[in-house]
């Protein structure tokens, strides 16, 4: 019985974690939708997780010179303030344009080299301890 309860408890934690990543993902796709109208293709693959206030997560991306990219970040937490910034492999900021509206933040980049880049997600403030986030990107 104890084992069953523990299992159910773990299942509940996993399920709720997925639930908020799913919600955040919906917001990330919402952030990307204006760019679809501008000819960008949004990837179906995505990054996501949860972070505490002031925490950061870096995600690696293979970008190609000649393409334009929008990285779109969403969160499921109302009132949370998150940002996403893109850096090259040497740690230099390469943001070209940024936008933010409510739970959605986006940044546009035009890589000058083909290679590895890093998107850094930061939770600046949040009304909750752990803030769910999801990041998608679109390319053209």
């Amino acid at each position: 019985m104890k084992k069953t309860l523990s299992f159910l408890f773990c299942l509940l934690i996993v399920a709720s974690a997925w639930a908020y990543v799913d919600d955040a993902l919906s917001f990330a796709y919402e952030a990307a939708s204006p760019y679809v109208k501008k000819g960008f293709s949004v990837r179906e693959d995505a990054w996501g997780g949860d972070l505490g206030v002031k925490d950061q997560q870096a995600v690696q991306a293979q970008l190609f010179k000649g393409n334009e990219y929008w990285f779109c970040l969403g969160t499921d937490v109302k009132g949370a303030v998150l940002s996403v910034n893109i850096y090259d492999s040497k740690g230099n900021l390469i943001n070209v344009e940024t936008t933010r509206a409510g739970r959605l933040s986006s940044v546009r980049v035009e890589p000058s080299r083909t290679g590895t880049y890093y998107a850094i997600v930061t939770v600046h403030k949040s009304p909750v301890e752990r803030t769910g986030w999801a990041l998608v990107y679109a390319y053209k």
Partner: protein
Amino acid sequence: MPNILNAVLAAGLLAIAITPLHAQKPPETVDFSSFPAQSIDDVVVPVPSEVFIVLDKLGNPNWRSELRDSLGRQSGNRAQVALLLGTVIAEGFVAVEAEDSEKVKDIGRRVLTLSKAINVEKAVLERSKSITDKAEVKEWIAVRKEFDGALQDVKAAMQELGDDDLAQLVSVGGWIRGTEVLTSIIRKNYTTDSAELLHQPALVNFFTNKLDNLSNKRLAEDDLVDRIRKLLAAIAPLIGEGEGDAIPSENVTRIHKMTRDTVAAIAAKGA
């Protein structure tokens, strides 16, 4: 005058109010060595079209000539089927570039057959139908999105079944076929700009780590998997050490031959 003063004051207060944390300028540089390893996520594997559209901008590749006549044969070996599935989905992206409706539809059907062989047919049933419908009306951007979706759905279904290793093989298979096509086009009209598209060290490292750490012993010891480990080790020094390093045409040709032979081996495994 007090009104103007009040207005200026109000504007000042408003400016402070709307300059919250998010408006802070991000740092111009960061030191990744200070990032804890667990705070850096794995790379997302790009779909072939991300690099194909750059080739379109650089020239006018003959995509139709890059399409394979045969999509290969499947065996009872799950590793081979997963790798083959990856190459077939990558072929879908080539067929979209070639705007070849019949080929796209054929590939959509083949994705379904291969998915059935590894018990993830349900996950791609809708995608396969959608690929056929959208290819029929030549909605190429939508077809491209469906192939991307099919790839993610297949991988997610495999992970749900506890077959994460197999999901990685689908990605690797797609990347190898994508690289074969990429190098085929570059070597026909070599420029340093086009060759730079091969500079993908994070992906090569990612796949190498995944294949070195397969939890399924049978997959880890599979001949094709071993062959791909060797392929990745051989490609790593050929794709430029640093960003912007020139990748000579000889390297492009070598990578092309290696990836072509590996795709042929994957496709012939069941023959």
